């Protein structure tokens, strides 16, 4: 296949393609072939790709990944003990993107399929290979899909645990998740993306979510990968009339992480809440990229992202809001605030509003700052040492986002994760 000049080398070429299992399913084989024709000529996005300007992939491209399905020395027999236990939840466990029935629970009200039983029309209907290079990479090498279909109200919380594990060589995997909620259905989904210590891993998941009219999805995603691991996730969502989605993305580690969420409003009075919090240290890099597309009138979207950065870490927030000419009475808001714990970290924030309708309410805000000296003195005057005071203030800063999680159990669990991160990190050194 033809390659454009000046492309960076990467491990996802012909050798990689030969090592990964060829799908028996003809539909999938064709789908993969089409995607590779899109991915190959462009490869991984470089610094000239506007959407990837702040998130260079050079470090990823240098790692000699093999497809996880070709690694025969990976043995995971249990969920790692550090993974949050959510009372009253049912678990779905994936290891390197592959559904593990032996580690998973059955869940009432959720039908679980592989690609065989799934609605074929859902595959690639939202996250097209042409729309995002990492979705194209996923489609080029996906070995299957996990489809969740919800027809009514699901009382239990569904906890999807995705474990990345390498053997003697770094592994990459490209899972595809298809979630569809029928009209009026509701689901609370928690996703934990974690890894085991060892060789580097690269998770490249794509999730396609379809909500029917009046459906309600709460999706809480936490990414806590190993320090040397990569996680580049793409989520594409379509909202029908009167449907509601509450998304929350927590980022607490990983060498290079991107959580990209693209939402399109397809029916009037759909409501989106999309929030996130992150705490980065060391050389962590975490990128939140959102694109909210108001195609129809009368929908609302609200985003609040807050992060703290320490060490030499790098946080990125790119938020695009598109309001089409017909999308009158749109209410779209976004906010990103970051707190620096030292002079080493870097933040890039890029709000992008494209508004073609005239009767709309749109607002965006961005701010960065440091811990308030008056707050520190007040706490000191009450006997609280500087390290503890910083922890309290950082937690308080992130609480503004975390408190938007409507599920109490998840809110408390994510809060504990943040506390854990803060107490592990020595904040004493912060300026």
């Amino acid at each position, binding site marked *: 296949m033809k390659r454009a000049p000046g492309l960076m080398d990467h491990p996802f070429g012909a050798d990689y393609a030969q090592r990964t299992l060829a799908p028996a399913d003809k539909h999938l084989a064709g789908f993969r072939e089409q995607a590779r024709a899109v991915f190959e000529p462009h490869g991984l996005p470089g610094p000239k790709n506007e959407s990837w300007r702040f998130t260079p992939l050079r470090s990823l491209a240098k790692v000699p990944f093999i497809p996880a399905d070709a690694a025969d020395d990976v043995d995971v027999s249990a969920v790692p003990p550090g993974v949050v236990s959510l009372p009253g939840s049912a678990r779905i466990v994936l290891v390197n993107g592959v559904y593990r029935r032996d580690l998973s629970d059955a869940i009432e009200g959720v039908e679980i399929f592989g690609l065989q039983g799934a609605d074929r029309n859902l595959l690639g209907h939202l996250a097209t290979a042409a729309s995002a290079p990492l979705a194209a990479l996923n489609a080029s090498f996906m070995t299957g899909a996990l489809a969740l279909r919800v027809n009514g109200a699901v009382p239990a919380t569904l906890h999807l645990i995705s474990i990345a594990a390498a053997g003697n060589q770094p592994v990459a995997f490209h899972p595809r998740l298809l979630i569809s909620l029928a009209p009026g259905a509701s689901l609370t989904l928690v996703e934990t993306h974690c890894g085991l210590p060892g060789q580097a891993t690269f998770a490249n998941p794509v999730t396609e979510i379809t909500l029917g009219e009046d459906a309600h999805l709460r999706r809480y995603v936490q990414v806590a990968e190993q320090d040397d691991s990569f996680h580049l996730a793409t989520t594409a969502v379509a909202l029908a009339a009167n449907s509601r989605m509450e998304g929350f993305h927590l980022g607490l580690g990983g060498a290079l992480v991107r959580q990209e969420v693209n939402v399109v409003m397809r029916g009037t009075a759909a409501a989106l809440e999309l929030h996130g919090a992150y705490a980065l240290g060391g050389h962590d890099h975490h990128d939140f990229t959102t694109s909210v597309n108001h195609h129809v009138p009368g929908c609302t979207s609200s985003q609040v992202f807050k992060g703290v950065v320490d060490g030499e870490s790098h946080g990125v927030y790119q938020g695009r809001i598109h309001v089409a000419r017909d999308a009158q009475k749109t209410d779209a808001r976004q906010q990103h605030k970051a707190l620096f714990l030292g002079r080493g970290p870097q933040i890039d924030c890029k709000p992008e509003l494209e508004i073609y309708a005239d009767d709309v309410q749109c607002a965006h805000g961005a701010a960065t700052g440091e811990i*308030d*000296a*008056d*707050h520190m*003195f*007040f*706490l*000191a*005057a*009450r*006997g*609280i*040492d*500087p390290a*503890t*005071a910083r922890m*309290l*203030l950082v*937690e*308080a*800063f*992130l*609480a*503004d986002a975390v408190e938007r999680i409507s599920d109490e159990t998840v809110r408390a669990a994510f809060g504990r994760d943040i506390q854990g991160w803060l107490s592990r990190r020595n904040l004493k050194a912060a300026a």
Partner: protein
Amino acid sequence: MALLEIKNLHVSVGDREILKGINLSLNGGEVHAVMGPNGTGKSTLSNVIAGRAGYDVTQGEVLLDGKDVFAMAADERARAGIFLAFQYPVEIPGVSTSSFLKTAINAKRRAAGQKEIDAMEFLKLVKAKTKALGMADDMIKRPLNVGFSGGEKKRAEVLQMTLLEPRVAILDETDSGLDIDALKVVSDGVNALRREDRAFLVITHYQRLLDYIVPDHVHVLVNGRIAASGGKELALELEAEGYAKYQGAAA
């Protein structure tokens, strides 16, 4: 030995000398009032004892139980028993009053080698004290000082003082922004804390507060120096005649 000893204290901010040799000695059980016109160094005195950054101590010392206060960081001073009730208590969004109080109590307990307060004990203690101060039950669930009225903020300061049991409490213009009812409640709270082994330094512009918190000693601070000292009657005299005669003398 005095509980708090301020000796020949000189303090500058930048090139400007604010305090020009303060001497004060507070014994256990005493309430000292420091009065003075605006801009005379009252807040500098309270801030420098509590350890706020931005002040240069150029001469002199402050001793708490004979120990050098300036050798301690602000949080160490607080754990050693110095409490500053702020003129303008800061609002801290996202930090609940209860978790703040618990953290402060435990910081002090840990420093004293005691075990941390347990959740039940804490709730019982706080409930009893908030009730005595006429505070709403839900106040401790709210973020610290956020959306509190002036009166609520000062009550919260007295609550903190009550829970932290300081050796020396410094009240920096506690009366500012208070109506007469709130002033009475706050004063009652302070008076309930008067003990033989505790001293108070009450800094105020007006005599009014001293009707409720009756001082043993009154000092007039003008242009960075103590221009006069006396008993509680000195406060009444200042109320009637103003600071003019001391300002003239000091100039």
